[in-house]
């Protein structure tokens, strides 16, 4: 069975891919998020955030305390579309 070190379980992103992206110049949480799709799966970063930060700090040598959080947008959990249809002002 192929061995992988999975960072983001939702989007199937491995440590190798993150390191590659950092080498290509995506050295912030926000840019990594846009380039790879980490934090954008159904979990919205609840499982992988700590690992991405750890890898980014290790690869760039930056202090972990300097990192800023990415933008959190609603909804925090998947919402059925029919609920949103019903949500308009009628």
């Amino acid at each position, binding site marked *: *069975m*192929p*061995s*992988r*070190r*999975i*960072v983001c*379980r*939702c*989007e*199937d*992103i*491995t*440590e*190798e*891919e993150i390191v*590659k992206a950092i080498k290509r110049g995506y050295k912030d949480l926000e840019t990594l998020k846009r*380039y790879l799709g980490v934090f954008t*799966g*159904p*979990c*919205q970063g*609840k*499982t*992988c*955030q*700590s*690992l991405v*930060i*750890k*890898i980014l700090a290790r690869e760039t040598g930056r202090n*972990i*305390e*300097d*990192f*800023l*959080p990415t*933008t*959190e*947008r*609603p*909804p*925090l*959990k*998947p*919402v*059925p579309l*029919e*609920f*949103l*249809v*019903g*949500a308009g002002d009628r």
Partner: protein
Amino acid sequence: MVGDTRIWNHPTIKFERKKKVRFTFDGKEIVGYEGETVAAALYASGRRVFSRSIRYHRPRGYYCGVGRCASCMMRVDGVPNTRICTLPIREGMVVESQNRFPSLDLDLLRIVDYLFPHGIDYHKMFIRPRFLRETYNRFIRRFAGIGKPPEPVKSFEPPEQGRRSAQLTVVGGGPAGLCAAVEAANSGVDVLLVDENPKLGGRLRREPQRIFQTNEKEEKTGSELLKELLNQVEKAGGKEEGKGKILVMLNTTATGIYQNHGNKTLVLTTPENLVQVETKTIVVATGSHDQPELFENNDLPGVMTSTAAQMLMNVYGVKPGERAVVLGINKDSLELGKQLLDAGVEIACFVDQSQKRVSETEKKVFDEKNIPFYSSHKIKKVLGHNQVKKAVLAHLNEDGSESGEEEKIACDLVCLALGRRPSCELTLQTGCKHRMVPELGGFTPLRDKKFRTTVKGVYVAGGTAGIMDTAGAMLSGRVAGLSAATDLGIGGEKPLAKCEQFLKQFQDYYDNLDEETKVGIAKTTVEEVC
């Protein structure tokens, strides 16, 4: 596959199993008991693979147990991508696995995993030659994504949106949230208490047998403490003069917060519809998330968070495995170890890079059973096909590098108990200031002594504020509830005086913490917030 793995004789917990419920999973009938979730019933029937991952079709199993990850998404009664770990079973429901061909245990699309050992880099692959791009796209689109859209319906009536208003909304019904709601209501505030679970209690529900310190320095089990807190919620029912009501909404998730000139609108997602709540103040007590860990095949079914294992064995009475490796040597992981033993799970060993945080007396229970502690070790990889079969431990030198010494340990369960990080999604949406605090595990909202964040009317308590310990979480909840009451101008001088008293207790609690946590909590505390 093994037979029924439910726990029938537990030394401390009695599981209620009255009514049998039948449902189908991929055409096969599964029998569960009322109150169980789909995931718990499937796990009890011996199922370990719950889904296939989006790109490589790797097997995924029960991982977070509380609806936070995406490893258990299935199609339920025609609705795709439903998290089955939080969905209660209903008679006759039809559950189907997704994203696999032909079956969940043997998925031929797994070939992708073998074909692309270094990952599918969609920024560079399938782009050239240009004229083939359309063909590539058409092909990829057939396989990409998870789940198929539901069957179209001719007409439907969308559920009407609910509207409410509240003086105070408490998000999260764990120890911190319950205390906040109780104190605020006792001061005369009408409180809306929201929790995503079918029952209140948070971690107390998950660890009913664990001994917790109360704020009066007594020792109580989780279930006793929960009973006491629920009693207080009951009493604060607004029957007495000068007391506010507590309205509890269960199975309800606060999915968003919108602000307009200081007015806050919280959007709640219930199982039936969306509810808009115009609220003056909010206490965010959403708790914390388990920390993940990186090792080879860390996504293999059998690797799960401590929370997930506790949900299975302590709430639903299902044995999470036969032989466990516990990752992490700390107070929580040792408690988890005791709970695993109670559930009849053998513990192969505890593994961590260091074991500074526990004393020899705390380890005694395990020493007597000859359960080894591998300090200065890490899990290098886990092996197995559809389920963990072995864990490979690597010895670490003092500088953290691998010494080359390795050991294979047979196990079918790897529990991640490496600490937690604050769940700050909602506070981030309010726009209040956060800071990365490694001592507390992640981003933590800044707050003053009275647990006010930098946005007016938003308070934090418990795990969200980085206070993972139950005694501290309860105190922080009480303070947050009272300072919300004070800021609303309800209850006169009384809440303020009470708040001072709890602040003193909190200071006491803080003084007795270990150095690392102290530093962490100090980093999140600021003098002035506004």
